[in-house]
């Protein structure tokens, strides 16, 4: 590292400013990141590489010499969490695994989330969206779109898919949120994870003891993988934890933020109502423009690699800053403009490399159905507060709105 004194390096993670949910970070911070690969300072004082270029992030995340295992010494932590207390805590959490260990678990799930499998779930997604809107309309305006629509829809869908009882939603929604909150003490984050694991362990034990044949993901994995000895029950607990949390927070935040953005330009919702077949392209641009994993993806360099003329050495930490890659002039024309009908499919909102979001077909389907029906059923939808007064969760690992007060 040369040129800049360590104390003067920009400090990661970068946060969205309180009053502008569509800015990936403060303008002043962004102006300092002039190269696609730069140096930053992490909260624990450790230096790390920050990669912001679209091409550079693609090259980086496809590289085999990287580790996603946060328990390795030197791994760049965006919040100071202690290392896993035991091997049991790591089991099943394949987003933090590498190589064969990762591939073994991911491959047990890929068929569940592929496009044709999600297509079979689409009537259930449609019904869930319809019923949530029926209830919201019946209760009448005003409403908080987060609690009445954006959160319950993906929550019900992931519960149905996994075979988790939705009536327990208050319990796991609160803990999912705490797990991703970067402002609460580490012990509370770990306690939330423990409580979710205990809940899932009890649920999985109950399913294993049940004589009934259930057609849900956890029950299928019990029958096809746990019963055959390919998977131990605690690994299934970890897998369930990942899918439950990821299935909630990401899509819920995308639905609410997308709605806020579309309400800024009512023409977008009018056009979606008239031409719902444009929804898939619109969803890709929303994913690009909003990129809710705003603090980026952390990785540890395991073998030296060259990136944009810099040498990243084994043992260095590196952060792939997805939101800036999705606003890279080299990849998108006028990247800071929201253009619902641009070709945005090469965005990196789902990440890149072998860890790329496994649930992306599900997320796309939920977003598409939710936004099309919102536009169709609520033509008079508008904000119930000024646009800059919508409370956000700036300190969550997954950016989102705390509330979205609307009326119609």
């Amino acid at each position, binding site marked *: 590292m040369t040129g800049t004194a360590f104390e003067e390096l920009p400090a990661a993670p970068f946060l969205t400013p309180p009053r502008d949910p569509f800015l990936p970070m403060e303008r002043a911070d962004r102006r300092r990141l002039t190269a696609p690969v730069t140096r930053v300072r992490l909260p624990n004082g450790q230096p790390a590489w920050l990669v912001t270029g679209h091409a550079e992030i693609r090259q980086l995340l*496809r590289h085999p010499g990287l580790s996603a295992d946060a328990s390795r010494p030197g791994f760049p932590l965006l919040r100071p969490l202690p290392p896993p207390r035991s091997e049991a805590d790591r089991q099943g959490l394949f987003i933090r695994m590498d190589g064969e260990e990762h*591939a073994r678990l991911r*491959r047990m799930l890929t*068929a569940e989330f592929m*496009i*044709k499998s999600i297509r079979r779930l689409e009537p259930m997604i449609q019904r869930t969206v319809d019923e949530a809107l029926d209830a919201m309309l019946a209760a009448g305006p005003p409403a908080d779109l987060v609690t009445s629509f954006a959160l319950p829809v993906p929550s019900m869908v992931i519960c149905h898919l996994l075979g988790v009882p939705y009536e327990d939603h208050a319990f796991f929604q609160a803990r999912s949120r705490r797990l991703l909150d970067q402002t609460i003490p580490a012990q509370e984050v770990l306690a939330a994870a423990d409580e979710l694991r205990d809940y899932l362990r009890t649920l999985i034990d109950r399913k294993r003891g049940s004589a009934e044949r259930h057609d849900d993901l956890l029950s299928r994995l019990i029958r096809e993988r746990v019963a055959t000895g390919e998977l131990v029950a605690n690994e299934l607990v970890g897998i369930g934890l990942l899918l439950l949390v990821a299935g909630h927070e990401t899509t819920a935040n995308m639905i609410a933020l997308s709605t806020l953005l579309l309400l800024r330009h009512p023409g977008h919702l009018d056009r979606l109502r008239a031409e719902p077949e444009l929804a898939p392209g619109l969803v890709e641009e929303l994913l690009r423009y909003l990129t809710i994993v705003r603090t980026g993806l952390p990785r540890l360099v395991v073998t030296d690699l060259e990136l944009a003329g810099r040498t990243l050495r084994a043992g260095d930490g590196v952060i792939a800053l997805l939101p800036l890659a999705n606003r890279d002039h080299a990849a998108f024309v006028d990247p800071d403009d929201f253009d619902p009908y641009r070709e945005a499919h*090469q965005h990196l909102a789902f990440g890149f*490399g072998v860890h790329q979001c496994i649930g992306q*077909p599900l997320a796309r389907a939920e977003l598409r159905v939710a936004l099309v029906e919102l536009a169709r059923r609520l033509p008079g939808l508008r904000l119930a507060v000024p646009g800059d007064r919508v409370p956000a969760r700036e300190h969550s690992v997954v950016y989102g709105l705390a509330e979205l007060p609307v009326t119609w």
Partner: protein
Amino acid sequence: MSGERAVRVRVDRERCCGSGNCVLAAPEVFDQDDADGLVLLRRAEVPPELADGVRRAVDLCPAGALGLR
């Protein structure tokens, strides 16, 4: 830019992570295995009219499991 000639696709199932981007980009050419979700080729020889979709699939593959030859 539209492809003039037929292209041949190469897939590496060992590298595939089952993201399904190829199926989204070129459903006439790519499919996913019902058993493990990994990439399947519906045809290895791609006619010129499908070549652009295949190039997009190669570009979008997060694992670098696809190639042209």
